[in-house]
């Protein structure tokens, strides 16, 4: 038994060390390691994506250049990381802004930066709607925190939405698109439609940087890869669980709740009335007062019910 175990380990180490490329290993990690990335300033954005096609456009409809990514629907839950190629470079002091025109309204908690392993929320505000060639987008104004490395900006996109995304800064555009390189990495992706397109074929294969296994010696590196290979689940295997939500929603017993709830939503108080109450009733202020007080009473009763239900629930 023991010799078979050793043989198995040997084969796995041998196979993994010699035949598994680093991109595969890194793509199995949820968080990419960015230290050894490719730095090519001729390509404004580098990316790695586990989907069949990608669309990368240079945006030129306004005076301010930018880059536009978009994704058409599908079942996807996304996080985008943007990082400057020079991690020591800081974005300027408070008073400047980053601008994120996005197609889907993002709350401030969905745009963060990561510094020293800690996530910080950037208090972005929605300024107005701006019309881009594709559609109207929300313009998010995100104040730059004071002297933080652009490492990372993390944007959580909601589930199952169309979204567009551009990065601008009113600080110094060259900081982003000419003197620096932004890395675009989209992970936790699950798209049944493969609906991200590439209008510009990237000039060269883009691979994610090697993981920390590369920094080790031959045997430690091989062992590192084996452990990574054996025990680090692929992002695809994690992401597939997000699709379960849709499935559960249509299956009994939850499907009944979903159906009834959708029917309740379609009940409308603004439909054409089947009958009209006498005009005198509408003029009686008593009913207006009663209606207002009923709203309060209903919410208070609902609050009591919630407290009672939760207090008596056996977790």
């Amino acid at each position, binding site marked *: 038994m023991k010799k078979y175990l050793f043989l198995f380990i040997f084969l796995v180490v041998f196979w993994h060390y010699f035949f598994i490329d680093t991109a595969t290993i890194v793509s*199995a990690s949820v968080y990419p390691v960015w230290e050894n990335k490719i730095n090519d300033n001729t390509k404004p954005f580098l990316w790695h994506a586990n989907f069949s096609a990608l669309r990368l456009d240079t945006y030129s409809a306004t005076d301010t250049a930018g880059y536009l990514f978009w994704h058409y629907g599908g079942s996807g839950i996304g996080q985008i990381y943007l990082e400057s190629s020079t991690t020591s470079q800081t974005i300027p002091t408070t008073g400047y802004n980053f601008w994120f025109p996005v197609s889907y309204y993002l709350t401030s908690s969905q745009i963060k930066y990561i510094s020293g392993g800690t996530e910080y929320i950037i208090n972005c505000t929605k300024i107005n709607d701006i019309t881009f060639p594709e559609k109207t987008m929300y313009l998010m104004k995100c104040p730059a925190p004071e002297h933080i490395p652009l490492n990372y900006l993390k944007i959580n996109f909601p589930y199952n939405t169309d979204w567009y995304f551009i990065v601008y800064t009113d600080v110094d555009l060259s900081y982003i698109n000419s003197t620096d390189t932004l890395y675009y990495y989209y992970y936790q992706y699950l798209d049944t439609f493969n609906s991200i397109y590439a209008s510009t074929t990237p000039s060269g294969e883009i691979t994610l940087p090697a993981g920390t296994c590369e920094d080790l010696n031959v045997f430690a590196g091989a062992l590192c890869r084996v452990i990574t*290979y*054996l*025990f*680090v*689940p*692929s992002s695809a*295997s*994690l992401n*597939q*669980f997000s699709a*379960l939500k849709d*499935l*559960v929603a*249509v*299956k*009994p*017993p*939850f*499907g*009944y*709740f*979903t*159906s*009834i*709830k959708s*029917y*309740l*939503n*379609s*009940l*409308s*108080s*603004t*439909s*054409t*009335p*089947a*009958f*009209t*109450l006498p005009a005198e*009733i*509408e003029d009686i202020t008593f*009913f207006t007062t*009663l*209606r207002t007080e*009923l*709203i309060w009473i*209903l*919410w208070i009763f*609902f609050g009591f*019910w*919630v407290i009672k*239900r939760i207090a008596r*629930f056996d*977790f």
Partner: protein
Amino acid sequence: MLATFLLDLVYSIVTGFLNFFPSVSISDSVSSAVATASTYISALDIILPVATLLTIMGLFLTIEGIILLIKIINWFIRKIPSIN
């Protein structure tokens, strides 16, 4: 590989279990009933806060659905040996 395999296995089992059940479908007559009900409800909207009622009913269903989900998860957990 192992973690991926386990996750895929769990996903396959859960998905297979769920696919065993047919998707919930409610009769089309419910739609017409809802449309009819809307016409009566809207007439009473002067007196009754219909929007509030509907919101509360939606929240009620959501909470009951979550409680049901928790109960089901707990039931599965209790099936694990040595866990009560």
